[in-house]
């Protein structure tokens, strides 16, 4: 009795398979249990066994073809048995298409234009021969070193989106590394005319890499509160006219954040794989925007410094940061950082944590708004602060407590000046 060889469903995720190799020829005898073909699934290459005795009468698909699960691959039947009905069924398997290895799948093949009969066969052959080497340059073909291929696969980077800098445009290790640092590694659309391509500065590349790592590996969560910024404004205004260092929101925030670190030491910590490392001092980083990036100089022992000292330190650090004259120890080692966009039209935002810190405080602008006090609407000033916290170290309550400690201090800024 005739038997069908069909593409088996060999895993839950399998939708189609590749007939890698026929191990029996047409006309060759087959016994039940014989391996007739090799089939490649999305996970492995497996042997396909026959379930009937007979002769492999017909191979329905060529080697290398990709066919859907359930499609007819071949027919086993007696020598003289009619298999017409089965063959008719098989012709429905139109989804069979040649297999292209992953990453080299080109655009759909358009049928060749009909050739006018006047062109002689010899000319055609010559043209075919001449154009043959170009086959390797068809769109979709990727030239990459084996190492680059492996790294790209490990990092889930599409090689087709990378421009190779090796000989002949070969994609090499450094190209994959550069692509991995880019937040959107795949340039999915080709640049159009007039676009400008600016190579990454070292700082931009580092920021890209570290921020991607941070957002991808640190489970961030966010806690926001609105604080009464009236007293803060008062202080700021009071100091505006005095000589000496300029004291503003940032300076007061730094001191408040430093003190709050001591009050909630769990925030002043780092996740270290198998341990949580608690920091000794209360050091606060302050994000400073540069032309091509950001750097976060650190105010050491912010809790113990006077606001004036903090202002002096910040003025010096910011100045040198802009001239790129900071020493590594001056922008490393903070327990928490401050990112203040209050000078712009930003009401509220959440910042990305700079590892190994476990939190960052994002500060919006002070807004004059209607506030309700003791049942009456009156004018007031409000400011929103948002803590981004690493949930591996800091839990919600801890984050809330820290925010509360900062808020309480900012709402009583005169105490910070003592």
């Amino acid at each position, binding site marked *: 009795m005739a038997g069908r060889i069909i593409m088996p469903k060999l895993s839950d995720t399998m939708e189609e398979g590749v007939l890698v190799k026929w191990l029996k020829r047409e006309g060759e005898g087959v016994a039940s249990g014989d391996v007739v073909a090799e089939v490649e699934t999305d996970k492995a290459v497996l042997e396909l066994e026959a379930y009937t005795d007979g002769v492999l009468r017909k191979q329905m698909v060529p080697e290398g073809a990709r066919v859907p699960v359930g499609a007819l691959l071949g027919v086993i039947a007696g020598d003289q048995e009619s298999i017409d009905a089965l063959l008719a069924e098989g012709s429905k398997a139109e989804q069979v298409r040649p297999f292209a290895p992953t990453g080299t799948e080109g655009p759909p093949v358009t049928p060749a234009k009909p050739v006018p009969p006047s062109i002689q066969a010899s000319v055609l052959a010559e043209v075919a021969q001449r154009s043959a080497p170009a086959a390797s340059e068809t769109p979709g073909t990727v030239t990459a070193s*084996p190492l*680059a*291929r492996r790294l790209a696969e490990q990092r889930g980077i599409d090689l087709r989106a990378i421009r190779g800098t*090796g000989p002949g445009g070969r994609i090499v*290790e450094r190209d994959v590394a550069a692509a991995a640092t880019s937040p959107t590694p795949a340039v999915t659309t080709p640049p159009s005319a007039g676009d400008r391509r600016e190579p990454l500065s070292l700082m931009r590349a580092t920021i890209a890499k570290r921020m991607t790592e941070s957002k991808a590996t640190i489970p961030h969560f966010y806690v926001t509160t609105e604080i009464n910024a009236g007293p803060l404004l008062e202080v700021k205004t009071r100091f505006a006219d005095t000589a000496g260092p300029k004291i503003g929101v940032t300076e007061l925030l730094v001191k408040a954040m430093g003190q709050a670190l001591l009050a909630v030491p769990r925030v002043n910590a780092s996740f270290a794989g198998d341990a949580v490392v608690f920091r000794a001092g209360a050091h606060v980083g302050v994000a400073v925007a540069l032309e091509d990036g950001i750097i976060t100089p650190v105010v050491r022992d912010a809790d113990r410094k006077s606001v004036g000292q903090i202002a002096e330190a910040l003025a010096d650090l910011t100045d040198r940061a802009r001239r790129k004259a900071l020493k590594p120890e001056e922008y490393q080692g903070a327990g928490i950082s401050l990112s203040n966009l209050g000078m712009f039209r930003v009401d509220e935002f959440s910042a990305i944590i700079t590892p190994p810190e476990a939190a960052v405080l994002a500060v919006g602008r002070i807004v004059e708004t209607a506030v309700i006090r003791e049942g009456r609407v009156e004018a007031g000033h409000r400011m929103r602060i948002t803590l981004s916290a690493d949930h591996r170290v800091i839990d919600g309550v801890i984050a809330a407590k820290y925010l509360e400690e900062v808020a309480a201090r900012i709402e009583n800024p005169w105490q910070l000046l003592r």
Partner: protein
Amino acid sequence: MSVMAYRDALNLALREEMHRDDRVFIMGEEVGAYQGAYKVTKGLLQEFGKRRVIDTPIAEAGFVGAGVGAAMAGLRPVVEVMTFNFAVAAMDSIVNTAAKVHYMSGGQVSVPMVIRGPGGSARQLAAQHSQALEAWFCHVPGLKVCAPGTPRDARGLLKSAIRDDNPVLVIESELLYGATGEVPQAEDLIPLGVAAIVRPGRDCAVIAYSKMVREALAAADTLAAEGIEVEVVDPRTLRPFDWDTVLASVRKTKRAVVVQEGWTFCGVAAEIAAKISAEAFDELDAPVERVTSLDVPLPYARPLEAATVPEAGRIAAAVKKALYLV
């Protein structure tokens, strides 16, 4: 440790092994009264007598063949060829007899023999006397081939070769005979088939042997000044070959440059490059580079000779190519 010349290290190995095992004897042109064309056998005739240090006529086919016979009869001959260029005259004894008798006799007969002498180029010895023919010997199953690059390796490998029960070719380098280096006072057997990391590095593996090690190290020095850290690996024995060490170095550095004094085509470097490509394919970031002699008989003229044999500059250029810096 004491500092001694490559030739003296070989002499020490011979003396030590002749004292240890009285089956060991030396045979070759000028090895006795003249004390060796390169003075490797200096003093041995006086110390061990005519029965164990035998001067032969200029007839490689004869005395190498006699050595093979002596080994089959139970002695442990060390046959000196004045240069491996002349071993070509004895190829039948080496390839057809020494290499295969153990196999063809079903293990009943062994050939515990050493054939040693200089190979490769020296200075202006012209085409017939300047060939690095080790690929010819490495090609043959049944032969072991080593090519020491330092005095310590020369002594240690020759001692291991003499103790080995198979035919071993110790291909020395004429230009290294006067080179000095540290050699331990104590017994120091360097096992056959074990490579050495001569200089550790992270950017590119340079695999070089015999006098090419010196060129590789010189190239590494120049490259280090440019911030390129080359790892120099000396296989020391070409067959059996220490693939583990070489492949580990390639896997670490992701790039390989193979240096060999002989010609490119079908050379030792070709074998090493093929194996690296097969075994470490996914680790490579660049094709394996080869630095070899140009594909011509070695010229006599000094400048042409220098332009033909691989040197540090060409090795450094190959490393830069493998790093996509040129």
